[in-house]
């Protein structure tokens, strides 16, 4: 266990953000304020169909800002999609990016910003602090309450040829402003609400137990856990309740601020490995791994895990069991095997997870064998 000392140097980076009803409509004003003349509006087809890309477009038009829509983005965005977007960005002579959507369009938009301003392949930026050319102004409008890419220094891009997820970590890609509007969350289907909610919980838990956590991140992590565990089941029951949706959005914001600065741990390292190999939903991977990683890590940060368990509540004895019970109440009852993961794939998955930068801040220095065992438990 890494000893913590509150006098250790810590940094806290957060973008400007506006939260509340109608935040989305401010997109045009901020685009203009950032000097954007031609915007690349990065979204996906689902968000477009739900009308949220159109709402942002209206706001831009009203502000007299031109834009080009780029929506050729899949879940777990591919490096090829990023490069196509960067080509569009350059060809259309854009000078700013607005992204409206979940984690996939937001991560893709960050990638487009990096590749568009450096004119290099996005996969070359894998790792920490590799982005040196400032990216164009980026406005994020999240339509899910999960990824928190709208406040984080992370962009996760899938290297489709090598079937792995690449983490790009840099303060340079923290968005310039995040517009947190609960309204777009109301069109999220139940499954997406559940998965993104579990992603939020994983962010909060991992940030809180991270060996890079700080008093500042602790406040946000704990508040995220408190907000999410109470609001998420209610929001699922009342998907159009703006107050409940807003609470999940706030939970995601707190979790995002916490993990962007304290980073994550084994859950995300292992989920990235899974998502790269199987193209599974990121939130679902986290949901299936979280309790097993908590159990494996418990000894390294027991007091912190106990605190988490206390917030979640319930009759179970360990924090991991309480998290497991929580996900079951959300309807997540399968295992990794049911999601298609094969036992013989575990060593490769573990090796990839071991090399993931998120593993560095896990409270316990897991060996490959330990990681394999966790996958095994989750199977």
């Amino acid at each position, binding site marked *: 266990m890494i000893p913590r000392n509150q006098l250790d140097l810590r940094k806290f980076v957060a973008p400007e953000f506006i939260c509340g009803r109608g935040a989305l409509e401010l997109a045009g004003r901020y685009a203009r304020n950032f000097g954007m003349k031609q915007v690349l509006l990065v979204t996906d087809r689902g968000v477009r169909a739900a009308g949220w890309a159109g709402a942002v477009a209206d706001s831009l038009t009203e502000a007299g800002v031109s834009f080009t829509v780029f929506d050729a983005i899949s879940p777990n965005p591919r490096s090829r999609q990023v490069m196509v977007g960067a080509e569009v960005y350059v060809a259309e002579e854009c000078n700013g990016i607005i992204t409206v959507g979940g984690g996939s369009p937001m991560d893709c938009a960050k990638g487009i910003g990096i590749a568009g301003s450096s004119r290099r392949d996005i996969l070359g930026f894998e790792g*920490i*602090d590799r982005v040196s050319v400032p990216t164009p102004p980026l406005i994020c409008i999240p339509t899910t309450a999960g990824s928190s890419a709208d406040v984080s220094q992370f962009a996760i891009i899938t290297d489709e040829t090598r079937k792995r997820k690449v983490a790009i970590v840099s*303060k*340079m*890609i*923290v968005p310039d402003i995040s517009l947190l509007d609960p309204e777009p969350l109301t069109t999220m289907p139940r499954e997406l609400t559940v998965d993104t909610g579990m992603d939020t919980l994983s962010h909060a838990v991992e940030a809180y137990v991270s060996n*890079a956590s700080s008093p500042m991140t602790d406040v946000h992590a704990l508040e995220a856990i408190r907000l999410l565990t109470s609001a998420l089941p209610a929001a699922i029951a009342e998907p159009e309740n703006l107050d409940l949706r807003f609470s999940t959005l706030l939970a995601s914001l707190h979790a995002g601020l916490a993990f962007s600065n304290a980073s994550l741990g084994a859950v995300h390292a292992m989920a990235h490995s899974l998502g790269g190999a199987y193209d599974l939903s990121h939130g679902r991977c986290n949901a299936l791994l979280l309790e097993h990683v908590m159990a494996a890590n418990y000894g390294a940060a027991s007091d912190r895990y106990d605190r988490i368990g206390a917030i979640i509540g319930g009759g179970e004895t360990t924090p991991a069991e309480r998290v497991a019970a929580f996900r079951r109440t959300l309807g997540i009852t399968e295992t990794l095997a049911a999601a298609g993961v094969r036992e013989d794939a575990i060593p490769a998955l573990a090796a990839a997870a071991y090399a993931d930068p998120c593993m*560095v801040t896990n409270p316990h220095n897991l060996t490959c064998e330990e990681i394999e065992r966790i996958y095994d438990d989750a199977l």
Partner: protein
Amino acid sequence: MHSDPPDDRDALREKIIGLGETSLHKSYYPELQNRLAELERFRALLDQTYDAIFLIHAETGMLADVNATVSAFLGYSKKELLKKSFIDLVAEQRKARFIEYVRKRSDLVSGSRQTCTTVLVSRDGTEIPMEITVREVTFSGKRYVTAIAQDITERLLAERELRIKESALESSTNGILIADPTGAVMYANRSFAAMFGCEEASALTGRNLEAFFADPAVGGEITAHLLDDHAIVREAVGLREGGSPFHIQVSGSTVLNDAGQPLCIMLIVMDITERILAEQLRRETYAQLGKNIEQFAILGDHIRNPLQVIVGYAEMIDDPFAEKILDESRRIDGFITELDRGWLRSANVRQFLLKHGDGSSSARKIRFRFLNVKEEDS
């Protein structure tokens, strides 16, 4: 199994926390500073140019920006200039024409370049003739006109000087021909064309100068000589367009560049047919004159010889007529002596013959004879 050195993981962790050397929040300021420095450098370059550069609002005609050269030319500060419209700077008498020019071209495709000349007036009233290249450009959705003006005062003076020289060449009564070092004609003046029976001087351009000599080799010789020696004066037989030959005198020189290499050759051609004919006539006249004098001397001898015989006889006989015969003989001898003397006296003629005679033997004999007479006479 994987096992990174702990140092590596620690360094990575430091960076994730944000304590790495380059763990920086996005800032455009360093880039902004670079760009500003770049702009300043560019501005300095623009200010260094000899061209006056104006950026004009297309809608209003007001100056949006100027380089330092504009201030240097016109004597207004940049601040003063930015309150003026471009037309304010155009000389009063040229304003209407300039406005007309701009109006006519206002429907041109954006980005096309146009050049005109006008006169700008400086603060102290000095009029500066300028050649102005204008082009419409769009920056950030706003239309502007860039005008790049060059002071053409010196160029106009040089053009005037050149025109004077050109018309002097053109109007010369001598034929003037300029050819490149290969002998190809670049220019021929009116007199040259007329001399060679050609109506249009320009029609001669491109021909080789060999074509103007009865013997084409002469043209080549002259060119070769000029490239070697840089000057030549010689007579030759020219060939007219119609094929008729005529006598010419050619004075040639080579024009060299700064490096001393020949740029072109220039020939000044005079029609000397009349002079050649006159010389021929003179030569023939002198030859005839020489022959006549010789015959005249022989005639004198033919008279004197029988006269001496007559005098001899008359002295020997005693006859009242003898004295009469002697008197008449002396008179005749006197006439001949007088004639000889008359020739001697005409020293001008003698000198002329000595100088310009063709040197034939008869003339020398006559001179000898006259000298004899002179000796006898004195």
